[in-house]
């Protein structure tokens, strides 16, 4: 080809040394290339800081554990209409359930039972739920029944129709999380 440049344009200095006839330009590094290099370095610093130095970024195992809890919770929730004591105890050891139950409790039940769950002992209206005595029976299914149907004549409303079976189960799990299963 005749129009191929025979000599490089002046801004391309060629290094004077040649190796076995091979010449070398000494061009500037492309900006986008440098940018990529710097960006990945900055990313490294940021990523390391987030996950390793600061401890803000969660560990893989923590993420996994939370995810598995969520899955278990979802499975338990699906089982909520066939509740039995064992399932309720299991729920009370699942943090997803217990967290959700705490939220419901504090918003719906704490007015009478107090956030401490100590109820009348703590100046509330309802019975204490942590004193170890159960007026209506202490088996998880019995507690569930009280919350679900209420004790209307004593001032304990029926919650099942209001908050639904799932939330009822969660809140019972929350109460149970303050107790140990008798062996």
């Amino acid at each position, binding site marked *: *080809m005749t129009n*191929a*440049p025979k000599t*490089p344009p002046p801004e391309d200095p*060629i*290094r004077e*040394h040649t*190796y*076995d*006839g*091979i*010449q*070398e*330009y*000494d*061009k*500037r*590094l*492309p900006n986008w*290339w*440098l940018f*990529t*290099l710097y960006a*990945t*370095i900055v*990313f*490294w610093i940021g*990523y*390391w800081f987030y*996950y*390793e*130095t600061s401890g803000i970024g969660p*560990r*893989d*195992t923590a*993420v*996994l554990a939370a*995810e*598995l809890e*969520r*899955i278990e919770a*979802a*499975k338990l929730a699906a089982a909520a209409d066939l509740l039995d004591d064992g399932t309720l105890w299991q729920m009370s050891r699942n943090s997803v359930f217990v967290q959700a139950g705490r939220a419901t409790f504090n918003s719906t039940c704490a007015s009478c039972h107090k956030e401490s769950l100590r109820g009348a002992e703590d100046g509330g209206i309802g019975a204490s739920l942590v004193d170890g005595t159960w007026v209506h029976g202490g088996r998880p299914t019995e507690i569930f029944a009280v919350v679900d149907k209420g004790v209307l004549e004593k001032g304990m409303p029926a919650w099942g129709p209001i908050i639904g079976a799932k939330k009822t189960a969660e809140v019972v799990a929350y109460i149970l999380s303050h107790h140990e299963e008798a062996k």
Partner: protein
Amino acid sequence: MMFAGIYYSTQRLVKARLASDFLSALHFWGWQAIIVAAAITLPLGFSRSKEYAELIWPINIAVAFIWVVFAVNFFWTLARRREPSLYVAIWFYIATIVTVAMLYIVNHLSIPTSLLHSYPVFGGVQDALVQWWYGHNAVAFFLTTPILGIMYYFLPKAAERPVYSYRLSVIHFWSLVFIYIWAGPHHLLNTSLPDWLQTLGMTFSLMLWAPSWGGMLNGLLTLRGAWHKLRTDPVLKFFAAAVTFYGMATFEGPLLSIKSVNGLAHYTDWIIGHVHAGALGWNGFMAAGMIYWLLPKLWNKPLYSQSLANLHFWTGLVGILLYVAAMWVSGITQGLMLNATTEGGTVLAYPNFLDTLNAIRPMMLMRVIGGGLYLVGWLVLAYNLWRTIRGAQTVNGSIEVYAEKPAAADTRLGFAGSVFNAPVLLSVFLTGFATLWMLGENLVSVAGLVGALLTVVAGYALLYSRGKVWQGWYERLLLNALPFTVLTFVAVAAGGLIQIVPTVMVQKAANMEDRVQVPYTPLELAGRDLYVREGCYTCHSQMIRTMVPDVLRYGDYSRLGESIYDYPFQWGSRRAGPDLARVGGKYPDVWHLRHMEDPRSISVGSNMPSYPWLSERNLDVASLPAKINVQRTLGVPYGPLTPQQIFDQVNEQAKGIAKNLRDAGAYVAPEKEIIALIAYLQKLGQFEPVTPAAAN
């Protein structure tokens, strides 16, 4: 190809003949002998089971020896060079030779138990880390740096164009050799490898992107002004395509190192596609281009047929594209299916592993076609080569070289001159400070960060004020092969030291998490060696990752302590079959017997091979005492056992399994190999909890 390219170009680049014809011949024949030995031993099941490091220890020694022969020959030639300054290709060759030697030796440290068998000195996580430090960098320093060197010689030669940028060569050479070494843990993402190593592996892999592309740019941009030649010259076609594949593979690599992408792609064909883009496209096409360029020169005769060379190019290109595309589709399909969940993410969408294999079956056909085309291309090359050289004489002569004046005394850089100067010291400080920042606690870490920042600022200031001086220094360094080699070695050694030494040194307890494996009984150990011999690890991993789909499919994620006595580790790298980390106790003994004799009788449509000979051959018990002695030396808690005690234990356990089988209606003598394998499989996943107190 690599050796030929290095030998050819080095002689010309340093204007000196190879130092020793004897060493060259030894190198050639020694290497051929190693290949033959490998081809015999591997199919017979003599294997260390570590990827790219399968060969047994006597061959390892031969490889190391031949590599040293190569190194001596090369450096001796350098010492006699008449061209004082080292060209960039030579830098890459130097990096190749020293780094491969280092990697190979460390990863092959093992203690023999017999003439044909050995255990590696590292086990569990340490072995995994060392293996992938080696495995990743074998790709880097055996399949990348020498080829880059070859590119820097043959590509400008063939294109008759100057190399694009010397400055880029300098930067990308040093950043490449320095950063590459750190990236090994990206082969172990989402496993039980400690988090800090995973983070290092991922971030350094991303940082590797630009340095790798520096090589590609320098290759492709050198072709500027020569693109028109591509139409006619098959050599340049091969080179241009090869460099493009290099760029593609080195873009894909960092992508695959991102943890979430890796969670999908790891253990699937995507990884296989990735390496083949590199191996077939980059290495293979560089080799082909080089051969077509060299043939006419070496035999002083034009190539027999340009059009056949073009045919090779096109069949090869289509072959690679089909192959790689098939692997992408297959890998992503299987990865997605394995990780897919339904019902709000609570159950696996494809609980049967075989579904995922059947889905990718058509891709395997495409893979075969692609690979076949690629092979045909090489047969075309062989024919072309034969027709070209038939009846021709090799050029055998000497060339007059013009040697420049002997180096003046003041170009010598002593030890002090090479080490005590701003660029080297700054790099050392920067690495040191950055390491303190990453690995130090509280104040040390802060100090490291401040130090690193100060070093960067100082570096920039100096670069602007004294850049010219640095340039002069580097030019002088290029006149000094030994200091150059030493600096290269330091640069590549740094990453490995910082990652591996802490992992090897820390008390084993710290590597355990909350569980420790129950050591194998002698019979189980024998079964494990069978597992290695039969190559089960090529399809089965033993590492349940910290990912929901893995846990849903295979059970609780694997802890470090659960493979602490595994010499060698068996975490695996491809799942063509399910993970086996917790298969122990999942099925009765007789299930395994039937499954090993004929997998399809148990799992309809399984593609696992049958292993009928395991039920026929007798177990080699005699070698067990030697093996257990070595394991004990390595730190596995075997009490003092006499050979007789070992044999008794084996007999007793084997009889138990044989009885189980008999009760289930299967008759196998307790001496058979299958009994040991069943013992091993049933052991997988057994651990004892460790309390922090007990660990200390």
